[in-house]
């Protein structure tokens, strides 16, 4: 099947208001103003924006959970609300905070039920479950009730549940929130492989820049209910000059380090202006982590050394804040 030119998500002037009650008065809040977006088959798109920018509202309208107040939306060629049941066969959704699984049942049993829900025949169910269990490394906890799973395990099971019926479009709402580094890494690697194999279109909302960097070809940034950027993440970071922060743990406290090409972003764990842990922000386009570390090492006196170091990636929130600030 040629999917190269198919449009998977298309919205025109999509908007949604909520009526909220404040005491006796009723007020209309615009959650999404007028969104025009397009996602082609096979794309991987990061949908980012501040809390309350309208991300969840958009996703709910794409799935047919909410009726749009205005505008048009087509998901996989279906109008989500009237064609919800047909659409459900073509999309898989993971809402970070709400589970598709049955909390008191083993994961394997949840998969069996979901296979019946989506009408998979025995051969397809066996093949697809086997594939997902192997790739997401679920076999170690397949027989454990979902409520006993760790967050990382549960998230992997949720993603498998959403992909069991081989949907064309996978929507992930904050898939890596709260996960440790290793779990994030495994999940991202799986998603890359899954997309390579099946050409699944991906739309994901996240606060984690790592997710966007490693998973998405394109970023959509929404602000106050409208699209303000569509393009690569690199392009977005360039426009706002996103920085990385090097966190250094020193053996002996020092006054704030002054390193060319970096900005000092605070010290901790020392007295009298000295700091054991220091943060240096740098622009990855202008210098490298290795150069910054070398410059720091030069400045350390005898008997002092860098015990540990971490690089903090720019937070999506941070990039978003900068874009928003530039627009206002």
């Amino acid at each position, binding site marked *: 099947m040629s999917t190269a030119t198919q449009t998977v998500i298309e919205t025109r002037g999509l908007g949604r208001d*909520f009526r909220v009650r404040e005491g006796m008065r009723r007020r209309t809040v615009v959650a999404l103003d007028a969104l025009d977006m397009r996602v082609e088959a096979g794309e991987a798109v990061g949908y980012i924006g501040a809390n309350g920018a309208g991300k969840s509202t958009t996703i709910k309208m794409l*799935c047919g959970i*909410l009726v749009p107040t205005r505008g048009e939306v087509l998901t996989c060629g279906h109008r989500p609300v009237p064609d919800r049941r047909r659409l459900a066969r073509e*999309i898989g959704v993971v809402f970070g905070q709400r589970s598709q699984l049955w909390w008191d049942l083993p994961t394997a049993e949840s998969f069996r039920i979901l296979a019946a*829900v989506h009408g998979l025949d025995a051969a397809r169910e066996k093949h697809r479950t086997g594939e997902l269990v192997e790739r997401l490394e679920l076999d170690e906890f397949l027989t454990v009730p979902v409520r006993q799973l760790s967050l990382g395990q549960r998230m992997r099971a949720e993603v498998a549940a959403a992909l069991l019926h081989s949907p064309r479009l996978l929507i992930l709402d904050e898939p890596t929130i709260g996960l440790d580094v290793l779990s994030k890494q495994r999940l991202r690697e799986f998603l890359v492989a899954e997309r390579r194999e099946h050409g699944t279109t991906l739309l994901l909302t996240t606060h984690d820049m790592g997710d966007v960097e490693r998973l998405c070809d394109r970023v959509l940034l929404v602000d106050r209910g409208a699209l303000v950027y569509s393009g690569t993440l690199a392009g977005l970071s360039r426009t706002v000059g996103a920085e990385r922060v090097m966190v250094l743990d020193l053996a002996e406290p020092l006054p704030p380090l002054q390193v060319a090409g970096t900005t000092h972003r605070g010290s901790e764990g020392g007295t009298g202006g000295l700091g054991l842990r220091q943060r240096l922000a740098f622009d990855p386009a202008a210098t490298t982590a290795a150069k910054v570390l070398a410059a720091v090492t030069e400045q350390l006196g005898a008997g002092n050394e860098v015990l540990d170091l971490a690089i903090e990636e720019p937070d999506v929130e941070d990039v978003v804040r900068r874009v928003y600030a530039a627009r206002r």
Partner: protein
Amino acid sequence: MVDLAPYRAVLASRIRAQRSHRASFRLDLGSSVLVGFVELAEIAVLFLTVDRLGGLDLAAIVLVFGIADMSFSLADMVFGHCDNLPTYLKAGTLDVFYLRPQPLLAQLVTSDISLRRLARAAVGLAALVAGLVVNDVAWSLANAVLLVLAVVSGVVTFSAMFVWAGGMQFFLVDGYEATNAFVYGGRYAATQPASVWGRPLVVVFGFFFPMAFTAYLPTLTLLGLPGSDWLPGWLGWFAPVAAVWAWVLALASWRTGVRHYQGGGG
């Protein structure tokens, strides 16, 4: 042809889960039976001081109780967890239902089943059988049909009450106490002779929520009793009509509720 496999898969897993906690399941069964007998005893105690209540003697009341209680318990077993809708709304479970290719209401109804209600239905059945034995029923084909019709219509009517209440939850935040007044109040009303009700109660539980049609009126018809001006004995045959009306109410409430959830606000 509707594919029932998805619903069967969910229900089978619920049943397995309930039976796997054997001790608590037995405890649930035991307490259900106990509550049923206490309610029955309550009526018997009432008849220590009076001979007749609303034109019915103790034997007839036991029959009313039996039909109503058994019908309600069966409806409660299948539809009772519609009461959990506020929890589902808060936890976002309902949003997950939207992601599956089955109708929402069908998914909600089949999302759980309370097997312990079977114990309660057994108490109702015992009262029903006792009622049929102690009353002087003129058995005929027509009366046998009437009895079956009454029980089936009763289950359908009470089920509709749960769905009606579910639909209302979309509007009422923490409003299940208000709807419980009608669902469980309705159940209580259904076990009573409707002839003792005042006019407002006849309007509410006689016709709007047709509780009188679930057990009281069929019992009158079965025993050949005259009934009252507002609720004459022959109305017992109209139990299926009442059941259809109850579902009209239920589906109207459910559809309005879902529209509100998707469209109106909050």
